[in-house]
């Protein structure tokens, strides 16, 4: 039986249930859409490098980048047939991604949805890792890592996180590095797989012009084919001991870029939120940042006119249960002025606060952003999966957003920034020899 959540304003419904094997299933019907999208995901990502295996007491540590490596190797199958080939017969395009906190496998189809769903569930439930296949993958992933090493936006963020965090694995690249992946073995992949890829730790999300009861019926049938002998119980993710202090206030690197790039980041030690409280914290900060640095803000417009910032200016907030940080970045010839003015405006805003009318306008536009998500089958599925691991749904956002007050936003801004917990990451253009 489904638990049904309706959102009359948007004319959308979410169907949720738990299958007999313990797997959560979420179905969001989208009448009239051509595409179907299914995502099978585990609450396990690049951050989970230390864990206590099911039924054991000792913490084990595995190499950085292993969750991502495992994701790549899920595409091999015991019968030797490549997963891409299986989906190709039905015209579906499969893909996968690894994040800091989750790994997701998905496909987009326009026909034969249930055949494709069968393949998805079956291949993620059928690990097949060998010494040879693991060694072979190191070349491919090595090139993926090298590709990111040449992307300045990626490098500047990684350097910032390494300046902010001492111990938390978020300071590392999701894919790890060439050295860490060289240590990965097929035994390690099985260890991670067996602990994190069990139904209780996973979720299946399907979106499209599909019938929830039919999806349920098929999904039950497919998970019943599961031949894995998985240990029963929950893997323990130890609490990471991360001091509130930063590592260092400044980090720089040289790359072949047109002009300097600067990123200012602040470690937010106000963490530990979960569920709707986490959502609330995150969106209070999002509204604060939009008010402070969005295109209607004094900061952005004053800096734009002074040619300190341009369209390359970005800002954002990552707010998770264990870690949170805010950042501002820009490509600019005037990086010192940018940093000085940023601090000056932050101090001024802390003192003056935000205008009530501006606050209401930003809330209104955020509501528009929520409605927009429902235009796209892929975004509905990705957002829903992510929310499922955080114990919320796509609809909770609406109530949370409505409940946020100007005081919440002002308080969030005031608590977010302080000099002591901030760091600067800079990329400078490589000096060319004459």
């Amino acid at each position: 039986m489904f638990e049904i959540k309706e959102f009359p304003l948007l004319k959308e419904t979410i169907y949720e249930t738990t299958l007999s094997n313990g797997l959560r299933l979420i179905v969001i019907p989208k009448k009239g859409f051509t595409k179907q999208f299914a995502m099978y995901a585990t609450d396990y990502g690049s951050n989970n490098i230390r864990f206590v295996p099911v039924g054991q007491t000792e913490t084990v540590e595995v190499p950085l980048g292993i969750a991502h490596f495992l994701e790549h190797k899920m595409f091999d199958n015991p019968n030797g047939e490549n997963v891409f080939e299986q989906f190709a017969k039905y015209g579906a395009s499969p893909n996968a991604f690894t994040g800091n906190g989750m790994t997701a496998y998905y496909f987009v189809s326009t026909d034969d949805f249930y055949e494709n769903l069968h393949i998805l569930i079956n291949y993620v439930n059928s690990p097949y890792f060998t010494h040879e296949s693991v060694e072979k993958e190191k070349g491919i992933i090595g090139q993926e890592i090298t590709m990111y090493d040449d992307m300045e936006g990626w490098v500047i963020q990684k350097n910032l996180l390494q300046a902010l965090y001492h111990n938390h694995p978020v300071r590392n690249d999701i894919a790890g590095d060439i050295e860490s992946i060289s240590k990965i073995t097929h035994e390690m992949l099985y260890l991670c797989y067996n602990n994190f890829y069990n139904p209780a730790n996973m979720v299946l999300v399907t979106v499209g012009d599909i019938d929830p009861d039919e999806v349920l019926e098929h999904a039950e049938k497919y998970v019943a084919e599961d031949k894995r002998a998985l240990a029963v119980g929950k893997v323990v993710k130890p609490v990471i001991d991360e001091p509130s202090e930063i590592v260092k206030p400044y980090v720089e690197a040289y790359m072949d870029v047109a002009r300097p790039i600067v990123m200012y980041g602040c470690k937010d030690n106000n963490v530990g939120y979960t569920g709707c409280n986490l959502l609330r914290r995150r969106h209070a900060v999002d509204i604060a940042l939009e008010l402070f640095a969005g295109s209607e803000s004094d900061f952005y417009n004053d800096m734009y006119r002074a040619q300190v910032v341009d369209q390359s200016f970005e800002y954002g907030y990552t707010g998770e249960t264990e870690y949170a940080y805010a950042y501002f970045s820009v490509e600019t010839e005037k990086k010192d002025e940018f940093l000085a003015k940023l601090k000056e405006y932050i101090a001024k805003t802390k003192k003056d606060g935000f205008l009530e009318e501006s606050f209401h306008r930003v809330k209104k536009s955020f509501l528009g952003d929520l409605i927009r998500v429902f235009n796209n089958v892929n975004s509905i599925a990705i957002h829903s999966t992510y929310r499922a691991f955080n114990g919320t749904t796509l609809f909770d956002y609406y109530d949370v957003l409505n409940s946020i007050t100007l005081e919440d936003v002002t308080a969030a801004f005031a608590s977010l920034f302080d000099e002591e917990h901030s760091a600067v990451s800079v990329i400078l253009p490589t000096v060319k020899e004459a």
Partner: protein
Amino acid sequence: MRMNVPEPIVLAKNVNLYVMPCSIFKTTSINVFIPTELDDDYTYHALIPNVLARGTVSYPDRKAIKRHLQDLYGATVAADVRKYGNKQVMSFGVGVIDDQYIQSEDSLLEQAARFLRQLIFEPTTENGLFRQDYVVQEAYNLKQQILSIINDKAEYSAMRLNREMNPGKVFTKCVFGDADELDNIDENRLFRVYKSIIANNPVDIFVAGDVDVARVTEIIKNNLVFGDRGSLPEYIPEPVYPTEVKYRQEKMDVKQGKLNIGYRTNMTAQHEDYCKLLMFNEVFGGGLNSKLFMNVREKASLCYTVYSAVDKFNGQLFVYTGIETANYQKAYDIIKEQLQAIIDGDISDFEMEAAVKEYRTRLKAVNDSMAQMVNFCYSNILAGVRISTEEQEQKIRSVTKADIVDIAGRIAEDTVFFLTNN
């Protein structure tokens, strides 16, 4: 749901409105496209949308614009230039939440059309020209944007290949203009070019969403008033038959090399064999089961990125890879072997089936995205073809292995560009 190519509603000579009613979306979008030539004014063309987006008579600066857009439930607005073949196209777009999902006194759709009118026709001015400070700032920023293309090594190396392959050709010009020219923008000329384009260049307007055609037509007619105008000459690229392969390279401070190869197909979207070319590309390097993906990546482990793409305007095809620089020869040889294999008829039933099915899925999925629907239609109009996704799907289905072998034999390698390190 299937999208047919909408019949244009002719608002004036060479001013066409295309309405795409589709009830599945919760937003409505209006896009205005104005093509220009990549001529001596191309830097000015690129600058105009950016200057217009700075302020209108009613909303004289960005702050005022942004506040207005937030009041419209976070309406999205874009003003920029894009390149399609030898044309530089000014694009103005606005997206709003469909009126049925919000409680608003004034229709968001009408307000969106009104804002688009203000953006295109009613710029804030001083002394009869664009505001000087806006021009100076936007010129500086555009120049920075051009110079920063080098930051994205994949984009930069693709641009370099295209230029090495087509020296001096208009269609290889940077869509954002010439960096040096942006140092000395003539404000009189800028305003003159703007006025001339708004008055003389063809206009195509697209509206997509859960809309009523008659009502939308009224709204557009009332707000976006473009008079009769001429058309631009159709673009028919001259076929090129390379006699030898050009090898070019550049050294940069990079960790990964980019090996890109350009081929001549001399088949544009209008060519009778165009759909066969698309299927050749799927088998060669377009899809997840293509020869390039399977052999260069999966079998040889040489790269993470490898794919090929068709340029439907200029009759070219490109292969893009990211490799360890030491593996240049190895990767190059394997890529060449894959093309040769197709020429030799080595296409399995599976490769053929996968190519057709994967492409069909992508084509059908176009109907689930407003942006893709509009782009599919508009790029085809510029390419001189009128085809629905369904018609294209039909054509794809009839392509045979023999067709693909035939196409492979007609493709000629032209230029190899390698971005490497010191």
